[in-house]
């Protein structure tokens, strides 16, 4: 018996033909199998999305936004407001809420803007995710719960996408379409915009006043609730969940007061950290005050952190 066949007998030829056919089949199978599974080579972002039906009070034909005249956006008029905390009035105030070495509170002046009455919901975010071509994964959860686990860039991308949709859609109220046409953007609020919307112009400690228990806020409960459950008629602008339910991301880098957007460029070479506001269902009363300043890493996806949007002038 030789180490390698030197003559091609009939059985050997048949065996070789069979083997060659088998080899060809393996190669064809591998090509076919890899081709068939090529999409799996990409990162898998698919998840079971929440059903695309709207909760009561939200419009299926308008990106699941609230069913009201301005699709859930509330106008905050131009003007000054009290920002930061005075420990003499608010004993729960943290040091980072002090305006400057010489002043306890500041009085920034903001132009008019619109802010969402509710935190962005799972259903709203999933409309965006469904149209993102797989780049953003849909989020699981109750449709009317605030969306959580979205990173800061994802929140911003959602706002950018919603702005583009609203700019061209007949479902968009004329008022909003006009401001978008004039260069306003749907984005995250600055922390000044957020604080003014939360406490009004009279420096309230909580959105509804000074008594922690007087509002309809979800804190210390240990669980999320639907955004519509946070209605707050006694709040200055009637916004829901400006205290509790989820922390809300802002567009402002974390830096010491006084609040000055022009100082943002000084942070360019630092590690990014953004202010978040409002506290969450897991916090105690001291952390859901309107002036509390938390911070979030832009890459973090946390079940206690969500966001709401503003329509803001450039």
């Amino acid at each position, binding site marked *: 018996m030789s180490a390698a066949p030197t003559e091609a007998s009939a059985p050997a030829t048949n065996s070789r033909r069979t083997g060659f056919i088998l080899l060809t089949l393996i190669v064809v199978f591998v090509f076919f199998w890899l*081709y068939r599974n090529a999409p799996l080579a990409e990162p898998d972002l698919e998840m079971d999305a929440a059903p695309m039906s709207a909760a009561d009070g939200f419009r299926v034909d308008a990106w699941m936004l609230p069913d009201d005249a301005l699709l859930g956006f509330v106008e905050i008029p131009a003007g000054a407001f009290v920002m930061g905390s005075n420990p003499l009035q608010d004993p729960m105030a943290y040091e980072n809420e002090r305006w400057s070495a010489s002043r306890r509170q500041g009085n920034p002046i903001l132009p008019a803007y619109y802010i969402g009455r509710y935190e962005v919901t799972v259903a709203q975010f999933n409309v965006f995710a469904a149209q993102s071509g797989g780049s953003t994964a849909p989020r699981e959860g109750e449709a009317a719960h605030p969306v959580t686990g979205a990173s800061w860039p994802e929140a911003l991308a959602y706002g950018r996408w919603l702005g583009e949709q609203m700019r061209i859609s007949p479902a968009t109220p004329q008022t909003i379409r006009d401001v978008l046409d004039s260069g306003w953007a749907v984005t995250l609020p600055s922390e000044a915009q957020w604080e003014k919307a939360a406490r009004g112009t009279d420096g309230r400690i909580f959105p509804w006043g000074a008594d922690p228990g007087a509002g309809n806020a979800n804190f210390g409960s240990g669980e999320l609730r639907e955004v519509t459950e946070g209605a707050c008629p006694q709040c200055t602008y009637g916004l829901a969940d400006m205290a509790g339910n989820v922390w809300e991301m802002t567009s402002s880098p974390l830096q010491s007061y006084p609040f000055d957007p022009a100082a943002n460029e000084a942070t360019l070479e630092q590690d990014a950290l953004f202010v978040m506001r409002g506290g969450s269902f897991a916090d105690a009363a001291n952390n859901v005050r309107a002036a509390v300043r938390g911070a979030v890493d832009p890459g973090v996806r946390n079940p206690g952190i969500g966001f709401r949007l503003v329509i803001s002038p450039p």
Partner: protein
Amino acid sequence: MVKGEKVLALPGAAAGGLLLLSLTGRVQENPVILASTLGAAAALLLWLGWQWIGYRRGGEYPGVRILLRPQHYVQALVQSSVFLYWGYYWSPVYDHFWLLGAQLLFAYGFDTLLAWSRRREYLLGFGPFPIIFSINLFLWFRDDWFYLQFLMLAAGFMGKEYVRWTREGRNVHIFNPSAFALGLFSLALIVTGTTQLTWGQEIASTLTLAPNIYAFLFLAGLVVMYFFSITLVAGMAAISLFAMSALYFALTGVPYFIDSEIPAAVFLGLHLLVTDPSTSPRTPLGKALFGVLYGLGVFGLYTLLGAFGAPTFYDKLLCVPLLNLCVIAIDRTVKSIPYESWAMMWKRGWNPARANVAHMALWIAVFAGASFAGKTDSRHTGDSIPFWQQACAESLPGACGRLMQLQATYCSDNSAWACNEIGAHYREGRIVAADTELSLGFFSRACELKSMAACQNLLQADAVYRPPPGDLDLRLLLREGGLNLLELPLTDLYRRACEHDWQFACATVRS
């Protein structure tokens, strides 16, 4: 030779070994690996059972002869040393240990049954080792696709058995078995765009994590060269690659390969992949030509694959089967050249062993010269991003593409600075066509990696903030040969950055 029913225990033992391996934690941790291992064992047992029935009917049992060939065990030892050294610096290699064992067991079982199905005795030795090691030095499938690894091995052995020709009166296999399997599967992965299912890219780029890897491969290669006279193939391949790289740099002002004169994985390939004596030319000039053609093939395929957007690390794998097909033509061509009268005049009368030592001496001198000139383990021009930024600004050939490629690599390594830079390129549209979606995508990634500049670029649609790399970025960008710089003191880090032409770092060092 051992013959009779008892030899059937050999493939049975291989299958049993696979079943035992399936009890290890490494195999059990992934259901696909577990199923693949059990499936491979089941396939061997089924095939064995089928053959056993045939042998019982025919009354004649197959044979096994022990044959320990130095070209198998020496090669296997050299390859093992590469695994050990490389794995010491890149842990997935050691994590792969049990899976390598599973492949070896499968290879022994498969090779035995294949030989018997061809009514041949099985030559038991270390033959499967260099085939399995060669394949795994260049490509292995990720855990969720591990069954394809077994298919790749099967294809290699079947290619050796069934794809044959008559060469110099002997029926021999055409292709280097490992190169055949690697070539076929590389082609399939390229065509289907599924390279991510393998560790190929990481394998190609992590050899340099081991310090002085070129010197290590050179020394390991000398062992193979000494015993098996492959000096002309490996040496000429390396020399031609060094020469072409140098010529390209002289003509264009930029390196051909990004971070080396010869990528470490190619250097490995030209020592341990292309040098199978039975599938390369027999004559000295033919071997030299074979080596030169390998160098040319790698050089050309690197650009060709890049032009098609395919991963360039396949360059060293794809050209080996093509060269194997040219072996007869190469031998025929060189035999028609009366080169003995001129090219070989200086060693006329030398026996092959003595000639090989002379070739080795020449190769040692070439490698020493290249090392002395800083072309092997030393810092390479292309390692410096500022070099590519400057070259791109001066519009040197291909420099902007290389800069993008380099930054994309660092971005995928989680350098926020690199991701922000790519986002900026796509927003500015100067060195690459403007693309809003891509720029936002890269800014988002950079922002999630804590680049405040990128976050601000996301907030402001008309802004392009491009600060210099941060400390963590520098620790990624300056790894060079793959050093771990995470613990490097800041002053040393900035000094190193200055040496890589980062001017802001030089200013910091001076202050």
